């Protein structure tokens, strides 16, 4: 097998991976970035809104107010030391991007343009703040392209179209790199490095309805679980109430703002029952739960009774054409319905994963060990959506995800430099650890049964939507866990029809499915354990937030589905702690 040696290997070519890679490459370290698609096609491009930093260019602002909003937005589950760190570093991270050449939009006075997002306040819950820095409607795209060009200049080495198999760790727990395969040739490769960073992004493809691109399959999460390490807060997934059913393309709230309304299979305007005053304009979580409840209670539409309908016809063609042209186009294209003539099928849609690989604020992966619940795993780091540092807690605020990428990408890069300096020599590679991922790959060449990747993947995504989406209660979750066990067993009987080596996407999809199955398991077990409702996790049978029992993080281990908890870090770095209050806006 081909073997390559680097100081550091970064898995994932999105914003966080490229920011960390740049830190290392600029300091003269030999860095590899491994990515299953070309880095500029990472999901970071979907972040169109912007990057939040209290620059105060439009309204008076400071990082401490941003910190308050983020803690409150997280429903007090976010770690306050990490949130303070992120909000304090935000301005310098944004100015640094500006100096790298990111073409931010400008105000008339030449300063960086900022826009207002929900959940942003001045003076700890006062007037609306204007805090999100934007580059027109393509901030994520601009960020990614800027970082990519800088990495090319800094001679970061890219392994484009390589799919990672597993981490390589020794008996003392040091991470020594990873195994991967070239998608083009099908050949495995060992990438040895003294430091490894996971930046593999989200895993929204585990749900039937998701706004996530097809690449978001939680590959880093599967690798971490198989390596015997835990995942944190996997019950927390942010849902948008109205994505096109079975497609995931988001239909903005603006449609309901213009007078569009939701109906169930009986033609009832059901929002009247859930929010008598605000009705279809109630907040996202209320609308999501209402739709999920209608579907759960059998009033969904379509052959699977798995969605409701968003009606716009009454607005008339002229209004629709003038005010909602983009939505009309989306609906015709992806739902096959012109909203002038018929309703759009919609359902709650998974958008962002708050949980992930537990890290500290240096991006070091941490896990319970002999001396405490948060011991760093030597040589292993994680940043971005795949990581849980935890700045988003139970609910992420818009504009904070790009910030998370660059602040913690940079912090992880800095710490990796320290680590590499302190650990200048390679450690011995245990052969069994190298073989682990290769054996998993080889199994997909065997004939095992008549199940298919596509079939199991479809069932998995439907199962997650139904049993662990927005509507959650014990009996429903337990039934889902039972069905998942059945699916996992059947996944062992998949035979790949295509056994060619070159660009065998069927094999990649099979490997992705293995990761999705683990993400699903972690999500359901964690959602079952958390007997409260907080942020994005809402339990019908435990409708209140329960700070006495649940002001803590969950930690899911693959072995025996073990579920541990660890305390929320309520003590910030320098300022006073924000005590949990009711979260109302």
């Amino acid at each position, binding site marked *: 097998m081909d073997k390559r040696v680097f100081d550091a290997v970064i898995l994932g070519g999105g914003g966080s991976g490229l920011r960390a890679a740049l830190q290392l490459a600029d300091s003269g370290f030999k860095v590899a970035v491994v990515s*299953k*698609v070309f880095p*500029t*096609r*990472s*999901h*970071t*491009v*979907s972040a169109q809104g912007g990057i939040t930093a209290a620059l105060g260019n439009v309204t008076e602002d400071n990082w401490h107010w941003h910190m308050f909003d983020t803690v409150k937005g997280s429903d007090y589950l976010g770690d306050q030391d990490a949130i303070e760190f992120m909000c304090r570093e935000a301005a310098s991270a944004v100015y640094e991007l500006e100096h790298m050449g990111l073409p931010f939009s400008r105000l008339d006075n030449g300063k960086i343009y900022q826009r207002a997002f929900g959940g942003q306040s001045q003076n700890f819950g006062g007037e609306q703040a204007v805090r999100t820095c934007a580059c027109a409607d*393509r901030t994520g*795209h601009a960020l*990614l*392209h800027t970082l990519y060009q800088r990495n090319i200049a800094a001679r970061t080495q890219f392994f484009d*179209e390589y799919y990672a198999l597993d981490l390589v760790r020794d008996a003392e727990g040091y991470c020594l790199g990873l195994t991967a395969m070239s*998608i*083009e040739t099908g050949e495995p490769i060992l990438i040895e490095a003294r430091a490894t960073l996971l930046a593999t992004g989200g895993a929204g493809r585990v749900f039937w309805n*998701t*706004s*996530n*691109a*097809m*690449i978001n399959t939680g590959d880093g999460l599967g690798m971490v679980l198989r390596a015997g390490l835990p995942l944190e807060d996997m019950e927390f997934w942010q849902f948008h109430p109205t994505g096109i059913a079975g*497609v*995931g*393309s988001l239909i903005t709230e603006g449609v309901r703002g213009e007078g569009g309304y939701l109906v169930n299979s009986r033609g009832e305007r059901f929002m009247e029952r859930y929010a008598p005053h605000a009705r279809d304009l109630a907040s996202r979580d209320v609308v999501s739960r209402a739709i999920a409840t209608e579907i759960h209670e059998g009033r969904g539409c379509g052959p699977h009774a798995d969605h409701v309908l968003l009606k716009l016809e009454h607005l008339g063609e002229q209004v629709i054409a003038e005010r909602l042209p*983009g939505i009309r*186009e*989306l609906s015709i*294209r*992806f739902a096959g319905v012109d909203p002038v003539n018929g309703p759009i099928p919609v359902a709650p849609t998974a958008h962002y994963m708050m949980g992930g690989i537990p890290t500290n604020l240096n991006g070091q992966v941490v896990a319970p060990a002999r001396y405490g619940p948060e011991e760093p795993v030597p040589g292993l780091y994680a940043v971005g959506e795949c990581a849980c540092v935890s700045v988003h807690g139970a609910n992420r605020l818009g504009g904070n995800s790009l910030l998370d990428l660059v602040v913690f990408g940079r912090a992880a890069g800095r710490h990796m430099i320290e680590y590499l300096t302190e650990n200048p020599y390679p450690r011995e590679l245990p052969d069994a650890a190298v073989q682990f991922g290769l054996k998993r790959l080889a199994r997909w060449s065997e004939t095992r049964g008549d199940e298919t990747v596509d079939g199991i993947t479809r069932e998995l995504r439907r199962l997650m939507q139904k049993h662990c989406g927005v509507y959650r209660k014990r009996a429903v979750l337990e039934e889902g866990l039972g069905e998942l066990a059945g699916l996992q067993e059947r996944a062992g009987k998949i035979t790949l029809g295509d056994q*060619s080596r*070159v*660009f*065998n*996407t069927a094999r*990649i999809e099979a490997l992705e499915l293995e990761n999705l199955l683990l993400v699903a398991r972690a999500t359901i077990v964690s959602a079952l354990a958390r007997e409260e409702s907080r942020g994005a996790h809402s339990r019908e049978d435990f409708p209140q937030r329960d700070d006495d029992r649940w002001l803590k993080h969950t930690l899911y281990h693959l072995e025996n589905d073990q579920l541990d908890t660890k305390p929320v870090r309520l003590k910030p770095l320098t300022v006073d702690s924000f005590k949990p209050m009711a979260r109302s806006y």
Partner: protein
Amino acid sequence: MVKGEGCEADRLRRLRWRCRRGLLELDLWLARFADNGLETLSDEERGNFEALLEEADADLLAWLEGRMPAPEDHAHMLGLIRTVG
């Protein structure tokens, strides 16, 4: 297998993988086209499609959705994707 056939199949599979993008809507546009229109492309058109896939996600989607005028070089291929997809 005849060598030429292998290369042809490999080339199609490579194109299919490169339809995986950072934006869901783009995935959907391109996957649908890959399923329905890829195999009937002429050699020249396939080259055009390869070139189109080299473009940035944000531009590609804006052209497909008609939010931005597309470069002349890509007009034919974008038109095909819009019809077939």
